[in-house]
């Protein structure tokens, strides 16, 4: 066991990290509180702060004034860039559904990653130690860097400053008022646009400051954005969306758990934090200090047309498309066969997300969890047990369904952003486990060596298997969508009070939908695993979820054939981008996502129907 001085030193380390977490999370909480934007790009401002500070502090004189002045200047620059982005991009999506906001801000994440890579390169950079705080203090015989000790005070100081700002100044009162009811504030004659821009400046300033303050402790790298934003989300969710004091308490909690977790459960630190979040959400569904979120007035995008049964012409068209796809291998190159097989597999995955998102309105922001469960189940069955592919696929479907069973039970107790964050948390738990349980999952290297039976070894053979799978899956999911169960699921989205008033148990129906969706996502994961012959932790990663979200979005969230069209359009574009513009694909993909959400939020199918369809509007 550890002696008391080690534990105390670790506590101080935890508190020091809590300050960084608090700065990031309080900015996120402010922005969410007022603008209700789920700012996934918040970690990018943190990363930007770190890199900008590296450049600026190295240009400043190496005195303590030079360092602290440089840090402040960097934070201001980041805040100004935040302002610019708020005014050009985010301002257009305030009334859009959460999933669009998450996607746009994720587009920003990609853009930032690419630009920072362009300007600062791929290497990790560590700043020199801070003038005046270069030494280490000795506390109970443990040596702790002076800089870490100084950071401990930054969190409480900014908590005080923010308290003063929000309780003693006019702008602060407006921010608090807008957090409670922004429509009321607007109708009292307050210029909302300026208020939102100021809040976004403040939030990104805090994130930039946190990033800048982190550079003497931790080298700046290109992964720091996603890591910090996921942690910041966890903190904001634990603390209660929009509550600054809650964010502080949660940051301290997470910082300390992190520090002690490293000592006692080095394998499972991040899992520990997510477990804390799950527990908090079960007992306090709105977080520690969070009030009830006032539901926003629905925007135009939430007016949805009914799902109509396909007409005779549609059925005929579908048959023709299937026939063409069956004949395609006769003329296509084997490269096209491979790409199309991937399109089919991804279409199953996107379809399973579409079922939750579009039919039932559940933002499954950790949908990769089921995909990864499927791929890893298939890989483990194949390599550890040496069983044939059929068993692997069955195991994958069951694992995906089991994931839906377990996660759905927790998730259906929550709503909106909390639900989205909880699904993300589950995916991140699995992501971390798949990296850390090296002996079981192969860690970062994944599992390789899945072999297909001889008759499926050719690209053509696998093409036909994928085509069969996507046809059957889509057909089954459509049946579910048009069935009483699918309608009941949609009913829960349309009106929860009415659903309860006609004797439905909304949570149970949603739970069942999680299981159905998980099973299909698991199937997609297994097919992809056998397609590549390998599985990697990224199967559980945020980018896998975002891929599926973008496919659903590109096709059209409220279109039944959206996921199919979306998987086709998106995958072809993504593959070509990576092939031809390897260095810029993130930038272009990010801009593409942003432009698509802003310009064509109803998706390809939606835009087509709007133009040529028989809609009522």
């Amino acid at each position: 066991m550890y002696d008391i001085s080690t534990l105390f030193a670790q506590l101080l380390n935890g508190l020091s990290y809590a300050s960084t977490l608090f700065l990031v999370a309080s900015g996120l909480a402010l922005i969410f509180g007022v603008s209700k934007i789920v700012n996934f790009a918040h970690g990018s401002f943190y990363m930007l702060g770190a890199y900008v500070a590296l450049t600026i502090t190295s240009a400043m004189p190496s005195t303590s004034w030079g360092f602290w002045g440089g840090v402040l200047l960097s934070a201001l620059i980041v805040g100004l860039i935040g302002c610019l982005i708020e005014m050009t991009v985010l301002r257009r999506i305030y009334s859009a559904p959460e999933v669009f906001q998450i996607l746009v801000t994720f587009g920003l994440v990609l853009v930032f990653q690419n630009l920072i890579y362009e300007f600062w390169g791929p290497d990790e950079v560590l700043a020199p130690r801070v003038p005046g705080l270069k030494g280490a203090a000795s506390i109970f015989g443990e040596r702790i860097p002076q800089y870490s000790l100084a950071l401990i005070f930054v969190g409480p100081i900014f908590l005080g400053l923010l308290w003063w700002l929000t309780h003693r100044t006019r702008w602060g009162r407006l921010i608090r008022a807008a957090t409670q009811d922004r429509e009321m504030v607007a109708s009292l004659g307050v210029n909302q646009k300026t208020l939102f821009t100021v809040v976004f400046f403040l939030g990104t300033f805090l994130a930039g400051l946190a990033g800048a303050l982190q550079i003497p402790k931790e080298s700046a790298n290109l992964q720091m954005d996603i890591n910090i934003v996921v942690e910041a989300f966890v903190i904001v969710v634990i603390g209660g969306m929009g509550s600054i004091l809650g964010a502080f308490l949660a940051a301290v909690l997470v910082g300390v758990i992190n520090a002690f977790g490293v000592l006692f459960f080095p394998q499972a630190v991040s899992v520990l934090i997510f477990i804390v979040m799950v527990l908090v959400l079960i007992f306090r569904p709105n977080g520690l200090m969070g009030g009830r979120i006032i539901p926003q007035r629905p925007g135009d995008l939430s007016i949805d047309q009914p799902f109509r049964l396909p007409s005779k012409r549609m059925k005929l068209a579908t048959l023709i498309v299937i026939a063409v796809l069956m004949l395609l291998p006769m003329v296509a190159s084997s490269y096209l066969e491979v790409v199309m097989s991937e399109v089919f597999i991804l279409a199953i995955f996107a379809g399973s997300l579409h079922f939750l998102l579009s039919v039932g309105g559940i933002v499954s922001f950790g949908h990769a969890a089921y995909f990864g469960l499927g791929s890893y189940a298939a890989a483990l069955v194949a390599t550890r047990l040496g069983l044939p592919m059929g068993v692997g696929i069955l195991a994958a479907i069951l694992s995906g369904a089991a994931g839906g069973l377990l996660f759905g039970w927790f998730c259906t107790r929550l709503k909106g952003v909390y639900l989205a964050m909880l699904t993300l948390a589950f995916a991140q738990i699995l992501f971390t486990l798949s990296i850390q349980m090296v002996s079981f999952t192969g860690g970062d290297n994944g599992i390789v060596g899945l072999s297909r039976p001889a008759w499926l070894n050719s690209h053509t053979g696998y093409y036909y298997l994928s085509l069969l799978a996507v046809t059957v899956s889509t057909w089954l999911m459509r049946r579910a969508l048009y069935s009483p169960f699918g309608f009941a699921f949609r009913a829960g989205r349309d009106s929860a009070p009415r659903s309860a008033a006609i004797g439905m148990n909304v949570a149970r129906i949603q739970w069942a939908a999680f299981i159905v969706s998980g099973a299909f996502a698991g199937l997609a994961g297994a097919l992809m695993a056998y397609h590549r012959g390998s599985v990697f932790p990224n199967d559980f990663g945020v980018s896998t979820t975002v891929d599926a979200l973008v496919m659903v979005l590109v096709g059209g969230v409220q279109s039944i054939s959206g996921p199919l069209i979306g998987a086709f359009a998106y995958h072809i574009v993504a593959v070509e981008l990576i092939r031809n513009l390897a260095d810029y694909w993130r930038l272009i993909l990010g801009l593409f996502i942003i432009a698509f959400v802003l310009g064509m939020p109803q998706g390809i199918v939606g835009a087509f129907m709007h133009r040529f369809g028989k809609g009522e509007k």
Partner: protein
Amino acid sequence: MSTLAVNSISKSFFAVKAVQDVSFTVGPGEIVALIGPNGAGKSTCFNMLNGQLRADSGSVVFDGYDITREKPNQIWRRGVGRTFQIAQTFGSMTVRENVQMVLHSVHDRLSGLWTPLVRSYRAEADALLGAVGMQDQAERACCFLAYGDVKRLELAMALANRPKLLLMDEPTAGMAPKERNSLMRLTASLVRERGLSVLFTEHSVDVVFEHADVVVVMSRGKLIAKGKPLEIRDNPLVQEVYLGTGAFLESSEIAQ
């Protein structure tokens, strides 16, 4: 036996005693109005009857069953239909699908995964839509309906499980006077036809006195009067609550 018996229910939110010791009954075939000024506790009272809130004390007995601690979906299955102050329908379904949705729940067929919903209970749904005069709009998307039509659709949905009691929360809120009376006349005729009882809350006094058999008046969480509309109209306590100053002047004059 009365259809609904409310026995001295109370509910507090922290220090605020929203409803104190309220009792009344709704007899078979009766239309009962629950009225009172803003903040009187009508909505709290109402939400305790339909299961959205749980009473701190007292009991609610429907059709011989104690439903005080039941959830909204259980209460509905016992035969209590309801409409909401802001009509709650399923916006992304057609008018007929809305009713078919309810009918599937009535017949316990919600877990079906195979036969499309639109194929079942079509005739039954059309009959209900006919009863509220909505059959010609059956194919329309619910989100494009006029508000008066949404209200009528909601009524059809509330009637789908042949309830014995219909709870209507401010049925005419947000409607034009003409629409308002036609909706209440429709409700009254359906009630007589089907022999069900109605309890509704209402702000509009003309609707109350024209359509209610019995009026229950609440003020500041307490029940202050119940009786036939004419008795209520002449009740000095009710006048005091609604007109306030007149009664106050009188009593101060007496004091002098």
